């Protein structure tokens, strides 16, 4: 059985290398983007093989789903997609790149071989009881290293602000082809999206899941409803629900981080009996923010303050 698993790993590695090569070097941008999307899906398989199911869930939803949607919509809006000549600069560079690439590969493998194994597994297991959750990854994300998660939600908000500051969202924001299939699909699938994302959120405390996979699934559902043509509440108005939801994650984490000071704890240290409910609350806020941010990133611009009867189609 060990040999079969090795064959599987080898095939997966070969497929990943080939797809990465296709994504960066094959002529034709559409082929490159599609290769990259499949690369994301196979990476999810690789994460499962590396015993990282939380990352596999997040990669399948974000890396293959959201990034794929972003790339395809950007590809559709680019003015010029035909590249003249070869995708890379000059053929003669091969004499430099092959030895340099092999040397780099050798150095990296040597360095990686000599790295000591990370040793924090035991500390995490020892403190798991007082963290309020049973899944070690969620405990690390939302309790032990919650500061990193705070900054990451901040980065997501910053990306949304950056995209909104670059101008209005491009119209048409929905596919020009009207088809009864997309709204029907949206109606059938949206309850499933909501159910799965709430389930993943709840499950994050004792099994693989958590705020990121839940937020990513909900974000994908939001992108599907945009494609199906639903628009009424997606306005950029100053006190509208969208801005509140986008900043909810960062606000909740900052509020908790500073609020525990009032309870006599140092910055961002939860009191042990409240740790479980606090983690759940932060997961909920972070999941909502991630979902709304993914939708905002997909729209690629600031939606108008009010629709006034215009529509997302031209």
């Amino acid at each position, binding site marked *: 059985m060990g040999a079969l698993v090795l064959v599987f790993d080898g095939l997966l590695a070969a497929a990943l290398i080939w797809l990465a090569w296709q994504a960066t070097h094959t002529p034709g941008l559409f082929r490159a*983007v599609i290769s990259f999307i499949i*690369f994301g899906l196979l990476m999810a398989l690789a994460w499962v093989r590396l*015993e990282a199911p939380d990352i596999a869930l997040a990669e399948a939803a*974000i890396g293959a789903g959201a990034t794929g949607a972003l790339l395809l919509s950007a590809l559709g809006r680019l003015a010029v997609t035909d*590249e003249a000549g070869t995708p890379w600069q000059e053929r003669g560079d091969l004499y430099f790149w092959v030895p340099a690439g092999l040397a780099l590969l050798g150095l*990296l493998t040597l360095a990686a071989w000599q790295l000591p194994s990370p*040793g924090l597994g035991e500390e995490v297991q020892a403190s798991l009881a007082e963290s309020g959750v049973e899944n070690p990854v969620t405990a690390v994300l939302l309790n032990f290293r919650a500061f990193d998660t705070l900054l990451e939600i901040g980065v997501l908000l910053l990306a949304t602000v950056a995209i909104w500051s670059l101008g209005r969202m491009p119209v048409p924001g929905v596919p020009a082809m009207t088809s009864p299939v997309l709204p029907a699909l949206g109606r059938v699938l949206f309850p499933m999206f909501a159910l799965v994302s709430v389930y993943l959120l709840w499950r994050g405390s004792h099994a693989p899941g958590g705020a990121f996979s839940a937020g990513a699934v909900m974000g994908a559902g939001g992108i599907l409803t945009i494609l199906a043509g639903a628009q009424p509440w997606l306005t950029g108005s100053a006190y509208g629900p969208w801005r509140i939801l986008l900043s909810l994650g960062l606000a909740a984490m900052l509020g908790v981080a500073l609020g525990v000071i009032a309870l006599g704890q140092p910055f961002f240290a939860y009191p042990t009996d409240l740790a479980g409910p606090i983690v759940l609350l932060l997961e909920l806020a972070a999941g909502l923010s991630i979902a709304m941010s993914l939708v905002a990133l997909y729209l*690629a611009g600031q939606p108008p303050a009010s629709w006034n009867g215009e529509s997302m189609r031209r």
Partner: protein
Amino acid sequence: MIYLALAGVLFVIGLHGLFVARHLLRKILSLNVLSAAVFLLLVALAREADPLDAVPHAIVLTGIVVSVSATAVALVLLVRLSLPRRGEEEGPGKEGR
């Protein structure tokens, strides 16, 4: 073990693509491949530890979200760069601006 080598190879492919690709979209794709290679390295190292170390998993999750935000901003910039600017006609040979 095989995943450490895979991470190295993907890193070299991504780096090469980043430098030699002509179109900016391909450079963005190469950056994503680079991040994927680094994440693979982190998690492959974490698996060597016993018991399974959860801190690199959390770091990689954070990294995936940050890389998708960076890709989104880069794509929006790319699309805006390729549009004709205000006050300038489309077409070759227009100097100034």
